[in-house]
């Protein structure tokens, strides 16, 4: 058996090269983690101290926030999970990694694409569309990397000794295929307005659920099987968990346009699949609970296992908060509030980050014949879990608070949610924003310990990691790949293609009169600036058919968006809705908008908007012409 294993591992040189690719992925992803968190913290600090570093273009919220989010999703999580897949899949299928030199190239391509994309966003070249912000060149680099990654993992599985591959490899191999497909879906050209909005919600949801969550759960299974070789996972729960998690997650994308200008049925679908997603996560959690039963002391002793279990906890929080928000009665209160940011924080920084921690904390020391260490484990797990816990709690509570005060203003007739009236719902969130900042800082502290420990493990000589056996359920590769493609096509048709076709509309009167800039170059430039500077991260351009939006003007129709080159409906109201900003008596004139853009706190001292005085005179004028033209 031992000689067979040696043969299957292949030549030592190739094996060392794949080890290099994995270690390189860990080191690069660690840097992205710290950088991304730093940008996130800077963005969060703007809520508490709006004057902080104000007037600097690179540090404007509309650039820093997306740069941080993209650094975390593409730079940290994607690179880390690809590295972990390059380590785990060969060992799970019993073959050496195919073409390790290409694996090294894949890591460099993806890291380069992510770094370049993040830099372009910081330099004000945002392409528009949540999670689709990177300019084409960097998208192409990422796509090339994803093709390589998926190809290598599938080839490795085909080379394997066994016809059937075990459960953690399902998640990692299928996840890499889904990563590529989600990216391709996001690159489908020729969509504008509402279809583009649907495209970005679908791509973002698929990247979260079909890639990051999948890879994360796969890593958690791998780590648990390694730390507890005698643990027995439940075959049926493993299967059910895998297929139900991946079948349901991408279908929940419509939650983000709940009550919006899209068709009603698109918004009913996520209610149904959101409930299924909660059950899927329960199945996976039950599988882990069964395997860990009677071995809880092992969880106490093993930092990687602690991280995996904490990650599962945050995964449950993520899908539960998302499901609750997809119910229309809840959505009519918490939509556009910090609630959705709580869901994202629980997923990105809670579940996915802790899963990646678990994998790296297991793999990185093992390559040196060492272990992560109990104290360096505690110093990561406690700050990160408590920090994410605090951050998520403030976002969810803040979401409820802001949503209810929007409702209270309208129902009492005391104020509506525009201009000065917006202050009543926004200003009271300062305390929660402060706590959010503290939570994120704790996460950064834990992440810093993690990266330092990771770097310290890079010193010393490498040892070969043994192949071993696993007690997981299995299935043939062909079945897995067919199923994975079917899952994606099914979800893509249901939550991307059909909704996009169904949302196509003729230009409305509003669009013709206020959004058609064929003969208005100033407004056209203004809209470009609006997209590039990320105004749409904080301002919606949609009036929903719900009580909260009373006083915002006529309800948005699908035809209102046909002239927008990307989706500008928006998903968060950190500032007031701008759909009919130009119609407002007090704040609708181009002159007022221009003054407000260059000195936001002159007129409204509660405003947290960055000052846009770093824009050129022409751009500033164009932006105010565009915004005041939205009537």
């Amino acid at each position, binding site marked *: 058996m031992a000689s067979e294993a040696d043969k299957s591992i292949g030549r030592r040189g190739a094996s060392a090269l794949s080890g290099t690719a994995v270690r390189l992925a860990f080191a690069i992803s660690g840097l992205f983690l710290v950088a991304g968190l730093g940008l996130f913290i800077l963005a969060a600090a703007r809520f508490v101290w709006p004057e902080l570093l104000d007037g600097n273009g690179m540090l404007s919220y509309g650039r820093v926030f997306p740069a941080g989010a993209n650094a975390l999703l593409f730079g940290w999580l994607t690179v880390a999970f690809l590295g972990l897949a390059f380590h785990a899949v060969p060992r799970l299928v019993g073959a050496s990694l195919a073409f390790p030199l290409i694996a090294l190239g894949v890591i460099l391509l993806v890291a380069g694409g992510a770094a370049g994309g993040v830099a372009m966003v910081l330099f004000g070249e945002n392409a528009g569309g949540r999670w689709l912000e990177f300019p084409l060149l960097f998208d192409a680099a990422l796509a090339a990397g994803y093709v390589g990654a998926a190809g290598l993992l599938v080839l490795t599985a085909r080379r394997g000794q066994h016809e059937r591959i075990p459960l953690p490899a399902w998640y990692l191999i299928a996840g890499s295929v889904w990563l590529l497909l989600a990216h391709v879906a996001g690159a489908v050209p020729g969509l504008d307005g509402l279809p583009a909005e649907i495209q970005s919600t679908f791509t973002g949801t698929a990247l979260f659920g079909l890639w990051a969550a999948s890879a994360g759960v796969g890593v958690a299974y791998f780590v648990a099987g390694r730390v507890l070789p005698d643990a*027995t996972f439940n075959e049926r729960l493993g299967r059910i968990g895998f297929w139900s998690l991946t079948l349901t997650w991408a279908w929940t994308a419509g939650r983000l346009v709940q009550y919006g200008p899209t068709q009603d049925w698109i918004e009913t679908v996520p209610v149904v699949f959101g409930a299924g997603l909660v059950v899927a996560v329960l199945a996976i959690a039950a599988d882990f609970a069964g395997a860990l039963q009677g071995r809880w002391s092992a969880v106490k002793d093993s930092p990687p296992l602690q991280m995996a279990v904490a990650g599962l906890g945050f995964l449950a929080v993520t899908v539960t908060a998302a499901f609750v928000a997809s119910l229309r009665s809840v959505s009519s209160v918490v939509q556009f509030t910090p609630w959705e940011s709580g869901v994202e924080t629980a997923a990105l920084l809670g579940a996915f980050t802790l899963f990646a921690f678990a994998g790296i904390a297991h793999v990185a020391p093992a390559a040196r014949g060492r272990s992560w260490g109990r104290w360096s484990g505690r110093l990561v797990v406690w700050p990160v879990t408590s920090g994410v816990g605090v951050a998520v709690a403030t976002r969810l509570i803040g979401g409820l608070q802001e949503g209810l005060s929007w409702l209270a203003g309208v129902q009492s007739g005391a104020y509506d949610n525009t201009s000065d009236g917006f202050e009543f719902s926004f200003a009271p969130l300062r305390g929660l924003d402060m706590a959010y900042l503290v939570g994120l800082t704790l996460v950064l502290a834990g992440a810093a310990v993690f990266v330092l420990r990771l770097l310290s493990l890079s010193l010393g000589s490498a040892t070969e990691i043994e192949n071993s056996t696993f007690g997981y359920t299995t299935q043939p590769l062909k079945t897995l790949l067919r199923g994975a493609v079917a899952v994606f096509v099914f979800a893509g048709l249901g939550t991307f293609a059909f909704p996009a076709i169904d949302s196509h509309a003729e230009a409305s009167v509003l669009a013709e009169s206020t959004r058609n800039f064929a003969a208005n170059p100033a407004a056209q430039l203004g809209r470009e600036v609006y997209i590039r500077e990320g105004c749409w991260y904080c301002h919606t351009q949609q009036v929903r058919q*719900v009580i909260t939006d009373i006083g915002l003007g006529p309800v948005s129709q699908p035809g209102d968006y046909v002239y927008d080159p990307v989706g500008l409906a928006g998903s968060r109201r950190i500032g007031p809705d701008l759909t009919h900003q130009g119609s407002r008596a007090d704040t609708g004139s181009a002159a007022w908008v221009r003054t407000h853009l260059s000195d936001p706190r002159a007129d409204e001292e509660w405003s947290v908007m960055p000052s846009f005085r770093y824009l050129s005179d022409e751009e500033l004028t164009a932006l105010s012409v565009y915004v005041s033209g939205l009537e």
Partner: protein
Amino acid sequence: MDELVAAAAKATGQSETMVKRSAAARAKAQGTTVEAVLAEWAGVAVPAASESAAVAAESAPAAPTAASAAAPAAKAALDVEETGEEVAAAPAPATAHVTPVAAPEVVPVGAIPRWLASLFVIVPVFALAYVAFLPNGPSCGDAGRLAVDPVSGEMVNCDGSAYGDTEVDFFALGEETYTSAGCIACHGPGGAGVGSFPAFTGGVLLTTFPEGSCATHIEWVTLGTSNWPDATYGANNKPVGGSGAVMPSFGTTLDAQEIAAVALFERVSFGGQELAAAQTDCFGTTPELAPPAEG
């Protein structure tokens, strides 16, 4: 050793050679001895094999279910490692009659907790029912949803009326205020007056404040005798304070809407004016004529 191999082979349903080879690989991976692995698979304890086995050996002979729970685990491991065959869902029978290992209480491989199994039935049923009955979500008025006016595009109440424009029953408000504000004490429950305080009935009210002059009526109630600017009031120029009675200034205790409602009530109930005419008279055609009083 051979005994162990035989027992393990029987428990897992694999050939003896295969069990031997698998156990060797597993032992190497876990850093334990071949005997320990075999013992675990066979469901028996050997001295100094592994920690869990040693602990188990001390405990009393466990129920046969413990051994049968361990067997499929071992079989699953074998399948993954060597044969690539379909993993059997049903537990293999355990036949070892040596001291069984007290395996930790794990859910048998393949079984699903009952609460979870029922969720897998309930949730899809709920989902299908939801889509079947509410494909377009809640109807107007539920879950924050309102209607949209087809002309203006603005949101309106489900019956098409403007949001916030709730119909106030001014007559009922006036009747209530007539009692609560104390008008009833001097002018009587039937508006017949008390002592020197004037009656409203018998055409008196509409003589003083004729149809179309509700505004004067409201002004009189608001200001009272002490704040009235002239020496006389009303269409018939009644002297202010002429009967020796004092009319209080209700502008300090009631808001404009309540005063107008009281006037409406008095004119309809005691003066005999038509309700619709009185409403136009006292409130005009738009509700803005009677805004809530400041402060």
